[in-house]
C-alpha cells in the first residue's frame, strides 16, 4: 500500500488503497497566466455587474438575471468548456472549474450561471446527436438561449428514477407528448431550452428530451418563495401533452437516468468549486469587518475567539479547494487516457467523470458543509450586524444552505460514496480485499511503536494518512463482513464510513498540495499552509476515530470489537500539536492581508 507507483493514480476511489505522489497532483498555485486572466475577468464581472445589484437581483427585478446572463455570455463565460466547433472556447475542466469557483462568489447569479452552463447545457453537449448540438449548443454557449434541467418532481427527489412524468408517441409518430409536473426548476422563469426527463409509456427507466419553451403544452408556475438564493428563478414546470418533436429525444430511449446521474457527477464536482469561491468571498468580508469593528477599544480581530473562527474558516476552505482541484485534474487525466485509447472525446469525458464519481460526492459534501461553517461563523463575527438584512452575511447565510440539498442531498452523497466504493470492489475494479486483509493481519501483530525512518517535513502526516486508510479498511471490511447485504440499510453506519472516507480524501489532498507547494516555493513561504495542514489533519484524525468508533460499537462485539477499537485508536493516533498557536498564525496572515490569501 505504501509503494508510490510510477503511473499516476488515475482510477477513482483508489485513494483508499494507494499512495499518491505530490508532484502528480494539480494545485491551484499552478494556474497559468491565461487562466489567471480568465479568473480576473470573472472577478471584474462580479464586481461591476453583480455585486452592486445583489439586492435588485434578490428581488427578481424583471429581466435583470437574464440580462446578467447575456453579459456573462458576451464575455464568453458561458462557453468556457464548450468545444470551439460549437461556439465555445474549448477550455479544459480545471479552467471551467476556476470560472465556477470565481463566479461562485456571486450569490444567486452563481446559481443561474451554474445551472445554465452545467445541467442546462451539458446533457445536450454530451448526449446530443450532431443536429441537436448544432441547433442548441452555440446558442447556449453564447447565452442567446438560456438552459434549464427538469428532473425533480413533487414526489420524486432523491429517488429520481421514480418520476411520474410520462411521454407517449403521437398517433402520427412525429411527436412525443409529455405529461407531468417538474419541481424546483432553476432558471425556469427565463429559460429557452429545458432538458426534461420522463418515462416513455411504461418504461422502467427515464428518457431525456430537449424541450423548447415555446413548445405547445409547456406552462410555468409562479416563482417559489425560498429561504435563500432568492434571485435565482425557481419554478414548477407543467407539461400537458407537451408536443416534442421525435428528433428531440436526447440519446437513446431509457438512457435518461444514466444522463441524469452522469451530469450530476459533474454538477457535484462543480458545486465544490462554486462553494469554495463563496467561502473565500465570505472570509474576505468577515476579516475586513473584524478589522474595522472595535469593541473594548480594540478591533475584534485582535481577540482570540474571533481569530479562531477566521483561521478555521480558512483551514476548511483551503482543504476543500485542495480536493476540488486534485479531483478535477484526475478527471482530466482519465479523460485524456480514454481519448488516447480510442474513445471519442464526449464519451471519454463522461467515462472520466464517472470514474471519479466517488470523489465528486466527497467534494460535494465537504465543500457545502465547509461553506455552511464559513457563513455561520461569518454571521457570528458580524455579531448583531450579522443578523441584519442590511449586511451581506444575512444573504450569504441563507444562500449557502441549499448546497447541502441540491445536486443530491449530502445524505445521498454520503451513501453513494460508500456504495460506489464497495460496488467497485465487488466488480473487481478496486482491490479493497487484499489491503483490508493485510490490515486485519496487522491488527493481530505487535503494534508499530513509531518508525525508525528518517523524519522529514511531511513524514508524520504521511504516516497519519496511511493509518487513516488502514482505519477505514478495517472498519469497512468488518462492516461488510458483519452486516453483509444488510449494510445498505444501515444508514448510520454508511454515514460513519462516508465521514471517514471524506476526511481521508480531503486530508490527503491537502497534504499533497502543501508538499507540492513547498517543493515549488520553499518551506519559508509556506508557513501558514503547513499550519493549515497540521491542524486539519489532527482534527481529521479525531473525526475518523469518532465515526469509526460509532460504527464498531454498533455492529462489532466481544474480543473482536475490543481489538478493533484498539486498532482504531492506533490508526488515528497523532502527536499533539499546538493548534492554538497554529490558528493564530493563520489568522494573523488573514488579518494583515484583509482577504482570503492562501
Amino acid at each position, binding site marked *: 500500500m505504501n509503494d508510490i507507483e510510477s503511473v499516476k493514480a488515475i482510477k477513482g476511489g483508489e485513494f483508499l488503497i494507494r499512495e499518491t505522489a505530490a508532484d502528480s497532483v494539480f494545485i491551484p498555485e499552478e494556474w497559468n497566466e*491565461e487562466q489567471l486572466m480568465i479568473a480576473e475577468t470573472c472577478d471584474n464581472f462580479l464586481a*461591476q455587474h453583480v455585486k452592486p445589484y445583489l439586492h435588485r437581483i434578490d428581488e427578481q427585478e424583471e429581466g435583470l438575471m437574464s440580462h446578467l446572463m447575456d453579459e456573462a455570455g458576451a464575455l464568453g463565460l458561458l*462557453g468556457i468548456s464548450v468545444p470551439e466547433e460549437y461556439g465555445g472556447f474549448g477550455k479544459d475542466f480545471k479552467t471551467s472549474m476556476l470560472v465556477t469557483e470565481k463566479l461562485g462568489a456571486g450569490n444567486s447569479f452563481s446559481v443561474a450561471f451554474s445551472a445554465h452552463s452545467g445541467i442546462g447545457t451539458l446533457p445536450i453537449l454530451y448526449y446530443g446527436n450532431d443536429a441537436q448540438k448544432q441547433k442548441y449548443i452555440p446558442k447556449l454557449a453564447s447565452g442567446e438561449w438560456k438552459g434549464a434541467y427538469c428532473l425533480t418532481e413533487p414526489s420524486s427527489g432523491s429517488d429520481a428514477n421514480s418520476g411520474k412524468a410520462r411521454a407517449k408517441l403521437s398517433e402520427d409518430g412525429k411527436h412525443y407528448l409529455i405529461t407531468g409536473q417538474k419541481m424546483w426548476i432553476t432558471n425556469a422563469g427565463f429559460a429557452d431550452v429545458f432538458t426534461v426527463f420522463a418515462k416513455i409509456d411504461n418504461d422502467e427507466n427515464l428518457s431525456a428530451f430537449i424541450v423548447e419553451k415555446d413548445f405547445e403544452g409547456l406552462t410555468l408556475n409562479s416563482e417559489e418563495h425560498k429561504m435563500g438564493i432568492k434571485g435565482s428563478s425557481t419554478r414548477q414546470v407543467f407539461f400537458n401533452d407537451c408536443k416534442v418533436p421525435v428528433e428531440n429525444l436526447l440519446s437513446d430511449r431509457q438512457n435518461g437516468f444514466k444522463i441524469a446521474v452522469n451530469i450530476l457527477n459533474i454538477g457535484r464536482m462543480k458545486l465544490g468549486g462554486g462553494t469554495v469561491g463563496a467561502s473565500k468571498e465570505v472570509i474576505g468580508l468577515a476579516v475586513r469587518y473584524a478589522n474595522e469593528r472595535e469593541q473594548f477599544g480594540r478591533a475584534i480581530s485582535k481577540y482570540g475567539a474571533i481569530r479562531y473562527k477566521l483561521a478555521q474558516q480558512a483551514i476548511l476552505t483551503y482543504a476543500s479547494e485542495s480536493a476540488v482541484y486534485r479531483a478535477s485534474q484526475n478527471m482530466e487525466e482519465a479523460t485524456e487516457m480514454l481519448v488516447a485509447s480510442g474513445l471519442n472525446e464526449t464519451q471519454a469525458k463522461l467515462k472520466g467523470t464517472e470514474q471519479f464519481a466517488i470523489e465528486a460526492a466527497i467534494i460535494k459534501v465537504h465543500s457545502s458543509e465547509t461553506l455552511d461553517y464559513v457563513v455561520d461563523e461569518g454571521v457570528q463575527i458580524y455579531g448583531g450586524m450579522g443578523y441584519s438584512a442590511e449586511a451581506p452575511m444575512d444573504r450569504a447565510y441563507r444562500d449557502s444552505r441549499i448546497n447541502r440539498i441540491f445536486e443530491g442531498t449530502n445524505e445521498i452523497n454520503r451513501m453513494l460514496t460508500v456504495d460506489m466504493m464497495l460496488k467497485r470492489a465487488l466488480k473487481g475494479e478496486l482491490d479493497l480485499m487484499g489491503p483490508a486483509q493485510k490490515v486485519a493481519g496487522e491488527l493481530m501483530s505487535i503494534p508499530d511503536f513509531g518508525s525508525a525512518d528518517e523524519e522529514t517535513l511531511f513524514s508524520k502526516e504521511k504516516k497519519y494518512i496511511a493509518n487513516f486508510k488502514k482505519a477505514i479498511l478495517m472498519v469497512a471490511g468488518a462492516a461488510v463482513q458483519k452486516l453483509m447485504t444488510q449494510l445498505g440499510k444501515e444508514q448510520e453506519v454508511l454515514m460513519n464510513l462516508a465521514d471517514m472516507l471524506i476526511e481521508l480524501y480531503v486530508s490527503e489532498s491537502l497534504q499533497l498540495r502543501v508538499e507540492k507547494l513547498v517543493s515549488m516555493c520553499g518551506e519559508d513561504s509556506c508557513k501558514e499552509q503547513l499550519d493549515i495542514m497540521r491542524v486539519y489533519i489532527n482534527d481529521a484524525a479525531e473525526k475518523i476515530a469518532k465515526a469509526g468508533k460509532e460504527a464498531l460499537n454498533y455492529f462489532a462485539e466481544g474480543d473482536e470489537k475490543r481489538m478493533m477499537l484498539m486498532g482504531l485508536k492506533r490508526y488515528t493516533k497523532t502527536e499533539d500539536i499546538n493548534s492554538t498557536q497554529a490558528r493564530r498564525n493563520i489568522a494573523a496572515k488573514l488579518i494583515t492581508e484583509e482577504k482570503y490569501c492562501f
Partner: protein
Amino acid sequence: MKILICISQVPDTSTKIVLKDNNTLVNSQGVTFVINPYDEWYALVRALELKESGIANEIHLVTVGKADTEPIIRKALALGGDQAVRIDADSNDPYLTAFYIAEYAKSIGYDLILCGKESIDYNNGIVGAMVAALLDIDYIGFAAGIQIENNVAVVKREIEGGEETDICNLPLVISCQKGVAEARIPNMRGIMAARTRPLNVIAPSVQSPVTAILSYELPPAKAGVKIIKPENMDELVNLLHTEAKVI
C-alpha cells in the same frame, strides 16, 4: 491612423506597501500588479473605441519594464491591442521612461499617443508631456473626452469651475483621465487571441536617468478622531491651538 498607448505596471490599489532594504526599495513579494488604471480604463479603451468606429486602424502598446511586466501587457492585448513592445529596462525615472518611449515612437511614427494622466504608484504625471517634448509634437494633459475627425483632435478638459475644449492637429500626445471612456473587461475571445498577438522585446537606447529615489517613507498612521461635546468649546479651542496647531 496608428495609435500608441503607453502602459505601465502598478501595484493593485488594495496593496499594502511594505518597504525593504532600509526603506530604499518597495517589497514586491506577494504584490498583485495591474495595468495602471488611467492607462487601461481611459487611454486604451478610448483607442479601442476609435478603432471600432473606423477612425483608427492599428493600436500598439508600449511599456518600459522587465519580463515581469509581460502579464499586464498580455492583458492589454486581451483587451484589444494589436501588438505590443516591451522596452527591456527598469525605470522609475520619468525622464528615462519618456526618453525610451519617444525613441521607440520616433522609429515607427504615430498619429496619436495616449497615456494615463499619471501612474498610481509614483504619481509623477509627466511622462506624457515629456514624450511630446522629446518628439517635438503637441501635448494635451488631463483629457476628459477625446474626439478625432479629419486628423484633428477635439479634447475636453475639466478646469476650475467649467470645461475647456482644445482643438489640435495630429500628431499629438494626450494624457487621459475619467470621462474619456468606460472600463472594459477582457472577454474570452480577447484573452485567447492575446497569446497570438506580437509582443516584441527591444533593448533600450542608451541614456541616464535624471532623478534617483533615495528612500521611501510610509505615511504616518492615521490618528484617532477626538469627539468634543458642543458645550466644551474651551477644550476645542485649546486642542486646536496646542495639538492641531491650526489656530
